[in-house]
Each structure stands twice: as C-alpha cells, then as structure tokens.
C-alpha cells in the first residue's frame, strides 16, 4: 500500500496552549482516511498543514514522495482539492465562475473547461441551470456541491474535506453523504476526511484515525477501535456517540 501523503514527526504549536504534538500519518492511495475526535484535538490542523495554510514547527510532509516546501506549495495546491464546512465560495462570483476560477487562471481552453464542468455537474448531481446563480442564491447543500466541484475541477490526486457536511440539516446531509461516497468510489479518490461524527466516520472511513489533545490516540478499522481500544478515552468516545445515537 503506497502512501500519497506522509507526515513524519510533524508538530505545530499555537500561541494559545493548543498544539499538535509530533505526529506521523499517511493517506493511502484510493482510500478514505477519516480523522475524528473532539473539537480542538488537532484534526483540522493536520489538513491545514498539508494544504500549507499553516507551516509545521518541525517534521516533514511529503506528497507523492516530494517534500512540501514554501517553494512548491502553490504548484502542489493545484493537485489537492480542499473543501471546508462553509464551502468557502466567493460571494461575488457565480457558481460557474467559482468552479472555473483556477482553470481560467491556468489558461485552460474553453471547450476543455465546458466538458469538465458538465462531467462535474453530472457527478455531483448539480443542475446546470443553477450555474449562473451566486452563492447567496443557493441552498446550503447546493453550495457544498459547488464547493466540491471546484475542488475536483483540476482532477486532484488528493481531496481534503474539513467537516464538509457539518452545517447541513439531516436530510440534505444524508443525501450528500450517499452521493459523496459514490463519487469517491467512482473516482478511486484518495481522501482525508475530517468529522466529529462517528456514524459519518464509520460510513466513509476505510481507515479511522482517532485524535485527542493534539495526538493520534488510535488508528485502524472501526472494529479494531471498538474491540481493542488503546485506552479508556477510545471506548469512552465510541460509547458516548453510540449512546446519543440510540436515545
């Protein structure tokens, strides 16, 4: 199993007490790795380190065997898709302009962009009638579909999703979960998926990484975590969420 992204002894300290302790992690090609844990556990920080929104204090991050530096980060960002909870769509651009932004910046041809856009609309089940709408004219679920299209536009090798469904109501969320999973399978996409919802983690995760207080506590399949918890926090976290789901 070859790793697309590898973090080796990466750490990050913030001015407030929170910190990511030296951490090792790899995202395996074609698999969905889910990062889960309570808020402030460092799971979003891991994604932000990979996409270069924060720089590590120590350690190394490699992408396809290439070490990420400030010199090559802009080039690598174009090979990585990134979706955040609020979508991150630019309000002054239409859905179409948001999706095509990078392709236009790189000077792709019109026909190439049109073909890709139609593919993406079909893939994400987004009606092309809505392409001329501005983000404020779209529903939350539609916005996340556009955000996903934007992330997939350049056919990235890696997709980073930071609680992409966190702000959606349950029905929309369930529909999108199903669609996302299909897309990942269809594309054979390598995904790093951050969530705090265990059911979502179980639904998506080929591999589940449980984090707490800036450290990876345990990593493996859900069966692995449930049957052989590494410490009391693991069973506590899993049981707490299961109790909520049952009541």
């Amino acid at each position, binding site marked *: 199993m070859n790793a697309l992204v590898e973090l080796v002894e990466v750490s990050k300290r913030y001015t407030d007490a929170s910190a990511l302790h030296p951490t090792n992690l790899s995202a395996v090609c074609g698999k969905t790795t889910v990062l889960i844990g309570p808020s402030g556990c460092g799971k979003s920080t891991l994604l932000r380190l990979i*996409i*270069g*929104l924060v720089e590590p204090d120590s350690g190394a991050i490699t992408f396809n065997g290439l070490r990420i530096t400030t010199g090559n980060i*802009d*080039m*690598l*960002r*174009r090979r*990585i898709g*990134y979706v*955040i909870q*609020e979508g*991150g*769509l*630019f*309000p*002054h*651009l*239409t859905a179409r302009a948001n999706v095509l*932004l*990078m392709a236009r*910046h790189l000077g792709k041809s019109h026909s190439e962009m049109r073909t890709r856009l139609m593919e993406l609309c079909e893939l994400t089940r987004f009606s092309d009638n809505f392409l001329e709408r*501005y*983000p*404020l*004219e779209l529903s939350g679920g539609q916005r996340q579909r556009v955000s996903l299209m*934007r992330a997939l536009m350049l056919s990235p090798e890696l997709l980073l999703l930071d609680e992409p469904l966190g702000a959606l109501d349950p029905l929309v969320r369930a529909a999108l979960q199903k669609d996302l999973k299909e897309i990942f399978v269809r594309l054979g996409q390598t995904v790093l998926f951050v969530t705090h919802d265990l059911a979502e983690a179980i639904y998506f995760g080929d591999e589940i990484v449980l984090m707490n207080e800036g450290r990876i506590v345990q990593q493996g399949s859900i069966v692995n975590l449930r049957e052989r918890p590494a410490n009391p926090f693991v069973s506590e976290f899993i049981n707490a969420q299961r109790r909520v789901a049952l009541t």
Partner: protein
Amino acid sequence: MKLAFVISFAAAFSNLAASPVVIGSKKFTESYVLGEIAKRALNDAGVPTEHRQGMGGTIILWQALYGEQIDAYPEYTGTIAQEILKTDRALSLNEIRDALAKFGVGITESLGFNNTYALVIRRTEAQRLGVRTISDLRNHPELKIGLTHEFLARHDGWQPLRDRYGLPQQNVIGIDHALGYAALANGSIDVKDAYSTDAKIAEYDLIVLEDDLKFFPNYDAVFLFRLSLRPDAIAALRRLEGTLDEKRMTTLNAEAERTKNYTRAASLYFEGGARSTTSAFGESFPHKLSRWTLRHLQLAGVSLALAVLIGIPLGIFASRGGPVGHTILGFAGMVQTIPSLALLALLVPLPFFGISVRTAIAALFLYGLLPIVRNTASGLQDIPRSLRESAVALGLSPAARLWQIYLPMASRSILSGIKTSAVINVGTATLAALIGAGGLGEPILSGLNLNDHVTILEGAIPAALLALIVQWLFDLLDRVLIPKGLRL
C-alpha cells in the same frame, strides 16, 4: 552643449507658454478695482493679462510676486516699508525703490492718492461722546473695537497704535473687513480700522478719527511689479501714475460696492479715454457660473483621481497591519485633523506650491486620502478568514488573489470611501478661492468681502448642488462597479 541647447529651448518655450501677464490683488474692494484697472490698461496696450482677484493679505501677495506666481499687484508705500521691508522708519520712494530692486521688484510712482489707515466711528456716537481724534478714545475705555486680522498683526497696526496713544480699551475683536462695517452699523462694535478711501465711510455715515499724533505713515498707492516684466507692460503700468486722486478712488470704490462689479467700476476710470477694443465689461452670469463650476470640478476631480490612485495602494498596505499599516493610517488620520484653511496656509510657503491651483489640488488630495485609505483597508480586513484561506488553498497567485478575489469583495467599502472623499472635496474646494485657485468659492469670497448675500449664494447654491449630484452619480456607479453577487 546639448544640455545648454535643451535648457535654452525650454526657457524659450516656457516664455511663450507663460505669455499672459498676471496681476494679483488683495482681499478688499480697492485692491480688486486697481487690479481690474491694471488688467484693462495692459490689455489696451496689447499685453494679454489676467487678474487673480482677492488672493489674500500683504504677505501672500508679496510672496506670490517674489515667487513669480504673479507679475504685479497694487500696494501702498507705508505697507511696503512696514510689512515687507520691516522698518519702523518712514522711507522715501527712492529708498523703497532701491531696497525692492534687490528682490527683483520694481515700483511705480504714486498713483495719486494716499489711502492711509484710519480708525472710524459712527457719526452719531462721535457727537454723543464728543470724540474727534484718536487721543479722545482714551476717555472712553468702554468702546468696543473690531479690527481686521491684518491690522491686529501689523507692525503699523493695533499694538503700536495702542502703545503710542495709551489706549485703554480691552474689548478688541478680530473681524473681516466688510463684515466689520455691518457690525459697526448695527452697533456690535463702535470703532474699527478702515482705509481712508473706503466708500463705506460715507455710506454708513461714519467719521474718520484724526490721527493727531501722526502715527500712521503715508500709504501712497503704487504698483509693485517684477523687474523682469516685459517693458511694454511696465510702461502701461507707469501710465497710471498720478491719475487717481482720493476723491476719484473713493467714487470708484463706491461704484464697485454698489454694482458688485469690479470690472465696471474700473471701466469708469477709462471713461473719456480710448475705448477698449476688447469688451472689459462683466461677463454674463451663466458664463461666470460655468467658468467657476468647470474650475471647481477640475480641482475636485484631479485631487480625487490622485487620492484614488495613491489611496487604494496605501489602503492595501495598511490592511496588512503591522507598523507600516499603523503609520499609514495614522498619517492619513493626522492630515484630516488639520483645519483645511491651515493646510492651505502651510502649503503656500513651500517651494513647489505657492499661490496656485497646484496648492489647492495638493491640499484637497491630502484631505481625500483618509476615507479612501481607511475604507480600502477595512474592506480588505473584513473579508472572512475562511474565504482568504480558500483563495490561498486553491493555489491562486498573490496578484490573482488581490485582483480577482480581495478587491472585488472589498469594492463596496472602497467605493463608499471614494464617495466620501468626492463629497468632501467638492465642499472643501470652495476654500481654494482663498489662494486664488478659483472655483465656486470665488463668488462666496467676494460676497463675504462685500457683505452681499446674493453673491455668496451664487457660489454656495451651485456648490451644494454639485455635492448632491456627485453623491447621486456615485450611487449609480455602485450599481455598475459592485459585483452583483455582493448586492443580493
């Protein structure tokens, strides 16, 4: 060799370009009228001439002449000795001529009248109190005295006059010359300074208090001119020597104040002489209005364009915070706290500026800067962090992030800053008339000098309308320039 050629060519060219002779005048009726007379006399002599009316007080006019922004202006011998040459001694005309030559400035002989400073009082009040001379004021410490700001500060003005006569009055205020006459008429003040040829003295039934200690020197009216002025222009000025006595000057002043038309008053001087070929009579109101408005728009427009070109980049730097950002915002904020009049006054003595349109534009530019810098900075800072990060995470280059994402998102804030600056500039541009830069402030200033409300409104109403139109145009511009997605 080549350089010398370029310089001489440039000099020849600038001589050609700067062809009209510029006459300046001070901010009171008689100076306006003398300026108009000189303009007409030079034009009649075939010398293209323009007249910058009411540029300010003695020092401003002298600096403008010395700084070659004007070529000639009417002055008084006593003022030259006291204010320009800074001597307490009475100087003969020849002594003055020798002293001025060192500055490259020449002087005509007397125009024929002595417009001395004087203190005036209502005739009824003078009779009631039995006051006839300045010495008599000693017995009436309760009298309220209103003086022009220039007289309050002059070496031959209030302080030495009070010391010489031992005057006891404590109640002394500074007031504009024309407004002072109105204040005297309605009893707000009892005594004010005047020029002995003021038409208002007769109009308001005032009497001149006799200068019994001979404090005031002679104030013979003359023209000062640059010695480098073309000889035919100097000759035309010198033909005015000895042609105006006190009575005639008072009549011309009265005519100017009655008709509110300096050109017409000046033309009285020429009546009986050769008729001017060019019509020197006053321009029509629509013509004047369009001239003022165009100049006003030019002042406000050029300064606004500069403020936009420089303010937006400064705002971008300022939005990044840190010491540089704080310095930029601090500087722009500080400029805004300087009163607009003071800012003009501060710029006038600087080498490049002086009495000119440049100075007015520079001052307006500095005023317009803060709203644009501040709104650009805050508009950029208000962009949510998640959207900034999205732009970075996409891999857009820094320039593309700025032009395609950040500036469009801040466009509403930036435009509203530009709108604020535009409205401020249209309003403040009325002050440009104080330094002879023209615009709609010109009638406002003349109206203040003449205490004439109609003339004030001729400038004030168009200026207010202009500000409203500018506001409306920018509201229209908002719809064109702010992206649709931000207006939902």
